[in-house]
Each structure stands twice: as structure tokens, then as C-alpha cells.
């Protein structure tokens, strides 16, 4: 089985080639959708088989090398895949969600232009993401890393006739490029510093084995990990490079669910987990990661308060939840971070697809009534729970999950992160406090969204509101599966205190991931230690904060709907700042984008036009001038030629004679 790991990325690649090359020839939408979905499903099946095999296996690390890529002196880079508990979880996550979202897209994208193009890109994305996750060395990972960036760009700009969509695609690409630059620098630095010790490798297992060659906590390892972390902030939308993610919502909703919530944006978290041995060696980098994560978690949550676009709220929520994952990585709670990555993938995919279902229904209704309203604006929604019962229930369950209500999935994962933040040897009570507040804010803005969308009076235009259909089964089925996962998915990682309380239920996830993280944690003495009562205390506080958030949202948006308006009138400037996302985009424009543009314009008008073009045109002008002078000797008169011949002969003879 392990020799067939290459099949996992191969199937989506095949699907991409079929739909990409022949998609326009296949006139039938259903065939196109089926090919794409089956391709991803096939790799899901293979992933499951690998996972089951790995569960029962003593050896937890397997490599499958299908060919040599670069062979240069003592450096050997292969097209190789690595299966260990971490990548096994990730491939299950990627292929499983991808299958569901492909299925959903069959219904959602029905009747869109460029249907085959959409599915081809989605398959290409799945392929690239699997390369990223499975690569056994940093270069293969980088191929996937760039590949998902490319697909993200292509899919954000899917409606390329729309200016805002193509701008958003470009923005995502350019911002990601900044991060990729960090990734590459980190890779070069790592390669070079290993080379100083005579080891030329970028293979992950060898990096982990040879990490001891670098000075523990030294400046080199700190620089390497900081560069890699810059890469992670780009891909995973953390401060300072998070600005592209909310704009990425211009893409079709399934894209937002798959790429910009569940899989691609977690690549940075995965990368840190993959190189946990290296990151743990630098407490300074870890601290930076934890602080950036916590800051992002709370900062993005504040912006989520004032957005009216349903997808934008979810986008900021994603940024905020990714902040939690980075917080976990930064305090050494690798298992908790990966756990939150998984549960977040479940509930956020469900939330996005649910919002897509609402948008789809409203779009249909507006289209029916010949109205041109924005189907994503929550102010035009309300009371949708009666129109779309399945969407509502699944959305509501996922919202309960993201708020961390007891026994929903994020309850376990988020509380484990918060507990580690509080009690880990690399944690700090301030990080815990920030995380807890962010968790409360999450509950508030998520329930604000739910109340505005599904509860209260129907604010949709009366001409359209009777034509809102529930989405077809092909769309609701993935919602139900995801809602079930969001509800029960947390049970794979029940913390010890609760497990012991109920009966001896072990933390399966921790046991499963132990081969990847345990060595690092024991080696660097990273552990969360504290009394069980303290752990129950943090759990209680975060649940309490979540309930307060929900309660406030209920007060503001259900009980007394006039409060938000009064609040906005009272604190106009604050509201405007939050509504405009704290003017971060404007700040970046002023500080970076516009100076760069001006520099570009300057280089164009001065360097390019004057110097480069000047040299090229100058050479031509020189030659033309010389020719213009010389052509006067060509009179066209036979006599003058004869004369010049005679004169020449006389001169030559004179030279011969008088020499």
C-alpha cells in the first residue's frame, strides 16, 4: 500500500488533465462534475486505505520515492512522498473535504459559464495540496506550496470579467509571493547552515535527524524559522499578510470553503508542524509565532463585528481561527494545533457551504424576481430558517461548534489550545487571556451572523422572498456530513481530564500523533502541567465567555435590534474604523503599494525609457548617421567611380615606388 502513495495526488491530476483538456468537448455538465468528484474520491479511498494500514502498523514513517529529481553532488532530491501520522491525517482531511465540496459544487455551479474550467482548477488545487502535504522534502512541498497559490489565484479570479474578482486574485497572488520569498530564504538558509556541518539535505526526516547539528536557540535557527514563519503568515493569512484572505471571498463559495477555509490556508500550520523539531529549537521564534497568532485571533475577530457581507464575516473568522492554530504552534501545543486545524476544517467548510447555500437560494430568488440585489448582504436576509431548514440546522450546529459549546468539536480543540496557553512551559497567562477573549468575540459575531441571517423578520425584498428554495440534495448532503463531523469530530481528541472523568477514554489523536511530536516535546521539555482543577477552570471560563458572547448577540440582534444602530450612532468613528477593517488596506496602500507603484513608474520613465531605450535607439541612430555621411561617396556617376579607381591606383603605385 505504501508503494502506492503516489496514486493519491495522481488521481486529481488525472481529473485535472481530463477536464482541463477535454472539458469543453464534454457538453454534459454532469459528466464533468462526476469525473472531477470521482477523481478526488478515488484518492480519498486510497488515503483511507493508507490511513487504516498505518493505524495498525508498528513503523509510523514510510517513504515512497517514485523518481529522482535533482542529483547534484551529495544533494539528492527525489519526487518522494512521506506518510506519517501527521500527513495521514492531512490527506484524509484534504481528500475527504475536497470530495464533499466537489459534490456540493456540482449543484452550486450549475449553469455557470466555464463549468469545466472550475472543476479542472479544483482538481489541480487538490493535486497541489496533496503534493504539499505528502512531499518528503521541502522542495516537493514548495512545488505544492506554489501550486496551491496558483490555483487560489485562478479560482479567486474565476469571475474574471468582474474587476473586483480579478483584483482580489492578483492581491492574493502578490501577498502570497511575499510569504513565498520568506519560505525560500528559510530553505536556502537551512540548506546552507546544514551544509556548513557537512550535511546536504532538504529531506524532512533528515532535517529532523540532523537538527541537532545547529546550535540550539542560536541565531541561525531563529533566522531560519522566522523566514519559514514569514512564509506561513502569507499562506495562512496571519498578521501582517492576512489582507488577501477577506478579498479572496470574491471567488465562488465552494472555493472559499475548500481553499480559503479548510485546506490551503492551513498549509502554514502544517509546515510548522512538519518541522516542529526545528521550530522548537528557537524559543524566540516560537514566542513570535504565539504572539502573532494571538494578535491575529483577536484583531480579526474585531473586524468580524462590523461586516455585513456573510462571507466576509466568515473570512475574518477564518483568519481569527488560524490565529488560534498559530498560537498553539507557538506554545508547543502541536497536537492541539493540528486538532484545531481538523475541527476547524469541518465546521468552517460547513459554515461556508451553508452560506453558499443561502447565497445560492437568494440569488435564485432575486433572479426569479428580476432584482439586482446583493445576495451576500446579511441585511437583506433574516428568517431564513423557515425557508432553508436543512441549511439552517447544519449551519447552526457548526456555529455551536465554532463557539466551543461543550462537546462540540471546537470545545475540545480550542480548550486544549487555551489550556496549553495557560499551562505550557512556553505559554503565558496573557496569551491565554487574549485567546479567551477572542473565543468570546467569536461566539458574538458568529451568533450575530446566525441571528441576522436565519432569525427575526424576513428582510428580503417582498418580490423575491417567496421564491427562495432549499438547495438540492447534492448540496445539502455535504452540509449534513460536515455538520455531523463538526458536532462529533472533537471526540477523537478528548482531553485526559474529561476522559478520566467519564471513564478511561484515551486521547486518540494525541496517541496517534505522538510519533511526530513527542520527541520534540520531551527533548525541549515542552509540556502543560497543572492541576486538573485548573484545567477545568480554563474550560469553564472559555465556555462561560462563549455563552456571554452568544447572550450579547441575542440581546443585540434578537431582543433589542435597535441597540446596534444606537451603538453605531454613539461611536461613529469607532464603528467606521472597524467597518473599514481598521484601515489596514489603506495603510498598506500608503506605505507599501503606492511607493512601490511610484518606484515602478519612476524606473519605467527614467531607467527604461531614458537609459535602456536610449542605448538601443542611440546605437541605431549612430549607425544611421554614419551611413548618411558615407552615402555621399556613392554618387551614381560612372566617372566619379572611374576617377576614384584611378586615384587609388596612382596612390598605390606611388606608395610602391616611393617606399
Amino acid at each position, binding site marked *: 500500500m505504501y508503494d502506492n502513495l503516489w496514486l493519491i495526488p495522481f488521481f486529481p491530476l488525472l481529473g485535472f488533465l481530463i477536464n482541463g483538456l477535454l472539458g469543453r468537448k464534454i457538453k454534459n455538465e454532469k459528466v464533468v462534475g462526476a469525473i472531477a468528484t470521482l477523481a478526488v474520491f478515488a484518492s480519498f479511498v486510497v488515503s483511507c486505505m493508507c490511513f487504516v494500514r498505518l493505524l495498525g502498523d508498528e513503523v509510523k514513517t514510510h517513504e515512497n520515492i517514485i523518481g529522482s529529481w535533482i542529483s547534484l553532488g551529495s544533494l539528492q532530491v527525489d519526487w518522494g512522498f512521506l506518510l506519517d501520522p501527521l500527513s495521514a491525517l492531512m490527506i484524509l482531511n484534504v481528500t475527504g473535504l475536497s470530495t464533499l465540496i466537489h459534490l456540493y459544487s456540482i449543484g452550486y455551479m450549475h449553469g455557470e459559464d466555464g463549468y469545466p474550467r472550475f472543476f479542472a482548477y479544483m482538481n489541480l488545487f487538490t493535486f497541489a495540496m496533496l503534493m504539499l502535504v505528502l512531499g518528503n522534502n521541502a522542495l516537493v512541498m514548495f512545488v505544492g506550496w506554489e501550486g496551491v497559490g496558483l490555483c487560489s489565484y485562478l479560482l479567486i479570479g474565476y469571475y474574471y470579467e468582474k474587476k473586483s474578482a480579478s483584483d482580489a486574485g492578483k492581491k492574493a497572488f502578490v501577498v502570497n509571493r511575499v510569504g513565498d520569498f520568506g519560505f525560500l530564504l528559510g530553505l536556502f538558509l537551512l540548506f546552507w547552515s546544514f551544509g556548513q556541518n557537512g550535511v546536504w539535505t532538504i529531506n524532512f526526516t533528515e532535517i529532523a535527524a540532523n537538527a541537532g547539528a545547529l546550535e540550539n536557540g542560536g541565531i541561525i535557527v531563529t533566522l531560519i524559522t522566522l523566514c519559514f514563519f514569514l512564509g506561513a503568515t502569507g499562506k495562512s493569512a496571519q498578521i501582517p499578510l492576512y489582507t488577501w484572505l477577506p478579498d479572496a471571498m470574491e471567488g465562488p463559495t465552494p472555493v472559499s470553503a475548500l481553499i480559503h477555509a479548510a485546506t490551503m490556508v492551513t498549509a502554514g500550520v502544517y509546515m510548522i508542524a512538519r518541522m516542529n523539531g526545528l521550530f522548537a529549537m528557537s524559543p524566540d521564534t516560537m514566542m513570535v509565532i504565539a504572539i502573532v497568532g494571538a494578535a491575529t485571533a483577536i484583531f480579526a475577530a474585531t473586524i468580524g463585528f462590523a461586516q455585513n457581507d456573510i462571507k466576509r464575516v466568515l473570512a475574518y473568522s477564518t483568519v481569527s481561527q488560524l490565529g488560534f492554530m498559530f498560537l498553539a504552534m507557538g506554545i508547543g501545543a502541536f497536537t492541539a494545533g493540528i486538532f484545531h486545524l481538523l475541527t476547524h476544517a469541518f465546521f468552517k467548510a460547513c459554515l461556508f457551504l451553508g452560506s453558499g447555500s443561502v447565497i445560492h437560494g437568494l440569488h435564485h430568488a432575486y433572479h426569479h424576481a428580476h432584482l439586482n440585489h446583493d445576495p451576500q448582504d446579511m441585511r437583506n436576509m433574516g428568517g431564513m430558517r423557515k425557508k432553508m431548514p436543512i441549511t439552517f440546522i447544519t449551519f447552526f450546529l457548526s456555529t455551536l461548534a465554532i463557539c466551543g459549546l461543550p462537546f462540540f468539536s471546537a470545545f475540545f480543540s480550542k480548550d486544549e489550545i487555551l489550556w496549553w496557553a495557560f499551562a505550557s512551559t512556553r505559554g503565558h497567562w496573557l496569551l491565554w487571556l487574549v485567546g479567551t477573549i477572542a473565543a468570546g468575540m467569536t461566539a458574538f459575531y458568529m451568533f450575530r451572523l446566525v441571528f441576522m441571517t436565519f432569525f427575526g423578520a424576513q428582510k428580503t425584498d417582498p418580490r423575491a422572498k417567496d421564491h427562495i428554495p432549499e438547495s438540492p440534495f447534492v448540496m445539502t448532503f455535504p452540509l449534513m456530513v460536515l455538520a455531523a463531523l463538526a458536532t462529533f469530530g472533537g471526540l477523537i481528541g478528548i482531553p485526559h481530564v474529561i476522559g478520566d472523568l467519564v471513564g478511561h477514554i484515551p486521547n486518540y489523536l494525541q496517541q496517534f500523533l505522538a510519533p511526530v511530536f513527542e520527541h520534540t516535546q520531551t527533548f525541549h521539555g515542552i509540556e502543560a502541567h497543572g492541576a486538573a482543577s485548573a484545567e477545568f477552570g480554563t474550560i469553564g471560563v472559555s465556555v462561560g465567555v462563549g455563552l456571554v458572547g452568544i447572550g450579547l448577540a441575542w440581546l443585540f440582534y434578537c431582543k433589542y435590534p435597535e441597540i446596534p444602530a444606537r451603538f453605531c450612532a454613539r461611536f461613529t468613528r469607532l464603528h467606521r474604523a472597524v467597518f473599514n477593517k481598521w484601515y489596514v488596506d489603506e495603510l498598506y496602500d500608503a506605505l507599501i503599494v503606492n511607493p512601490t507603484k511610484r518606484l515602478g513608474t519612476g524606473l519605467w520613465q527614467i531607467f527604461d525609457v531614458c537609459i535602456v531605450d536610449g542605448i538601443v535607439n542611440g546605437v541605431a541612430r549612430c549607425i544611421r548617421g554614419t551611413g548618411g555621411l558615407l*552615402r555621399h561617396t556613392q554618387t551614381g*556617376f*560612372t*566617372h566619379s567611380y572611374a576617377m576614384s579607381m584611378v586615384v587609388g591606383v596612382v596612390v598605390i603605385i606611388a606608395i610602391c615606388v616611393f617606399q
Partner: protein
Amino acid sequence: MIVSVYHYMVLSAILFSLGTIGVLTRRNAIVVFMCIELMLNAVNLTFIALSSYLGNMDGQIFVFFIMTVAAAEAAVGLALMITFYRNRESIDVEDFSLLKL
């Protein structure tokens, strides 16, 4: 008076110069052409005189070659001039200026 090789040399130099001046000054293409022939024959005269003077037959062989080539050249040159005359109704070398600016 004994005609020595010196006289031959002077004569051929005079003929060559006359030919050259003719080529440079005359406008009628046929006259120019005849002047070129004159120059060739001046050279022939030099060859023969020196051949006889030095007792070496090489010069005389060269003269035959030159005469052959001159005959071929006369044929081609005259054909060119006829063609030119048909096009331009003139054989004035001043009119041979199609390549002029």
C-alpha cells in the same frame, strides 16, 4: 634611329594615359569603351616589348589571353549598351545613374 625598349615603354605609357583620360572625360559610352580597349592594348604593347627584350615568351602568352578577354568583353559591353540604349535612348554615361541617391 634604333627603336629600343625604352621607346616602347614611353609609347605605351602615352597610350595608357590617353586611354585613362578618355575614360575619365568622355561621355559617350562607346568612346569610353574604346578608351578602355586602348588602355588594354597599351598594356599589351608593354608585355610584348618586354617579352622580346627579355627573351621570355610568357609576356606574349599573356597578350593572347588579354586579347581573348577583351574580345569577350567587347561582345558583352556592346550588348549592354544596346540594351541600355533601348531603354533610355541614350548611351551617355552620365545617364548610367540609376543607383544614385
